[in-house]
């Protein structure tokens, strides 16, 4: 499966809490960041956790977010960053 996003692309994290095992933290859902790097494709943990085969594999990205965007009351300098691994089906263009 080819990657939908490339490094530098702006992406929004989808919002949702479907039943089962999730690897997309609630605190980052709905936030906008940019793709820092592409990790390649990996089996989908939401399927693996429940005995599935994890296929089709999902592209995995390291996405960076500005701390003050994630936490409006962030106490440190505004250029500090939060970087999170997120699977492609949780991302949409922003």
């Amino acid at each position: 499966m080819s990657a939908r996003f490339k490094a530098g692309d702006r992406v929004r994290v989808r919002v949702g809490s479907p039943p089962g095992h999730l690897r997309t933290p609630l605190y980052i859902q709905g936030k906008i960041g940019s793709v820092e790097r592409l990790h390649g494709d990996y089996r989908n943990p939401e399927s693996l956790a429940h005995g599935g085969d994890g296929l089709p594999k999902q592209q995995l990205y390291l996405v960076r977010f500005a701390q003050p965007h994630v936490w409006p009351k962030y106490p440190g300098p505004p250029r500090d960053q939060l970087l999170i691994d997120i699977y492609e089906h949780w991302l949409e263009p922003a």
Partner: protein
Amino acid sequence: MHDDHHDNPHAPPTPDHPMTEFERRVDAVQALLIEKGLITADEVRRAVEEMDYRSPALGAKVIARAWVDPAFKSRLLANAKSAILELGIDVGELATIVAVENTEKVHHAVVCTLCSCYPRGLLGYPPDWYKSLNYRSRVVVDPRGVLKEFGLQLPPNVEVRVLDSTADMRYLVIPARPAGTDGMSEEELAGLITRDSMIGVAQARTPAKR
């Protein structure tokens, strides 16, 4: 001793304390897997032994090489697993190690907010604080405050990057090489590289004054 495992030839030795719910469950599942012939007790023992052998000394060896050999550091940053294999260390199949570098301008710290993902193949078991809800919930919100509690105060011009390892990647921090270490051997340098500096909650040790 009055536990009932003595009658069960498949059960592993039980701990000396009253077993918790999880321990009993693991025990039961393991006994079933062995009974059905899917795994053997020796395979379980070997896996535990293999895990126990891992320690931060492995990670320190990798970082020390990166400090003295810029070409190795580049390979480590590009593809950590194959670079680490050059040193004869096999980090295993389960996770992908990704190395990130701390410098004068950027400081990385690693957390797994969802559970306790950790580069075990290279650092061994994670420390208890790494698995605590306290660290996991606070380091993403106020990393500088948490690092200060660890004794690390970073100037405002250093960009702090918190890495939340929520998926298949296991992050290894390459701490900055301390000043005053120019003449040191790789082995001496490895002694300065602590577990916490490879998680990013501390700097590498500075050498003792001679």
